């Protein structure tokens, strides 16, 4: 599928922040649901071949979503999101931290800010992700590890194929 929808991805290392902007060919309320309802989030948040499963979600200020990214081998990487601010269909903020399977969060997390706007049936979502330490920005970005593991396993497959020749 080709489209002309905007996709912008920038990193400000000095501000320890990643900025992502994307347009979607759908009305705002639908896009809002896709970002805030677990049954929809679980359908797209994990880059294939990973899958995403939400154990529970309570979308309100102070509420949490406890979820895991699951690798094809069944390895689970749990994380907790706590909603810190919600302005329906306009903006929501959350604090994201990796956790163990018993919901014990790791020390450092990241702060996520999502802003939604609609124009002529196209919905724009702007996300900023602030990481508490630069090290985090470089190492702990959500999905980062999985991405690296995938890349490494792809590399390994390639090497295996090459070495068989």
């Amino acid at each position, binding site marked *: 599928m080709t489209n002309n929808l905007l996709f912008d991805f920038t990193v400000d290392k000095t501000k320890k922040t990643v900025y992502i902007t994307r347009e979607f060919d759908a009305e705002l309320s639908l896009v809002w649901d896709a970002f805030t309802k677990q049954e929809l989030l679980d359908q797209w948040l994990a880059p294939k071949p990973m899958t995403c499963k939400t154990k529970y979600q309570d979308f309100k200020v102070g509420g949490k979503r406890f979820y895991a990214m699951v690798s094809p081998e069944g390895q689970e990487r749990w994380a907790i999101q706590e909603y810190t601010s919600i302005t329906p269909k306009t903006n929501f903020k959350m604090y994201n931290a990796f956790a163990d399977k018993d919901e014990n969060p790791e020390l450092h997390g990241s702060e996520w800010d999502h802003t939604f706007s609609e124009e002529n049936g196209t919905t724009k979502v702007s996300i900023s992700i602030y990481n508490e330490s630069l090290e985090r920005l470089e190492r702990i970005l959500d999905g980062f590890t999985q*991405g690296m593991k995938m890349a490494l396993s792809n590399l390994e497959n390639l090497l295996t194929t090459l070495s068989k020749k």
Partner: protein
Amino acid sequence: MRRDIFQAIADPTRRAIIALIALQAMTPNAIADNFNTTRQSVSKHLRILTECELVKQEQQGREIYYSLEIDKMKEIDQWLEQYRKIWETRFNQLDNVLSTIKKQKK
């Protein structure tokens, strides 16, 4: 003895160790807690990773912490490029979810 990076990542346990310490610096014991294997086996893997210069050790008090040698792995921009690709994939998946829902509504 110098080893190469391919040897470092050829083993699934070492790949898992890299993934773990990519998240934060860890002691050998903390790393070993994540595996159904002996502390000695983890130490061996850490030694190989160290020889490949993929991880570095840092003494903090009485503990030694292992962390990922990012520069050696790849330039940060290449890492971020991967992260960007993950978001690209995610959003393409979201496009599909949205278009499916829109069709159902009609």
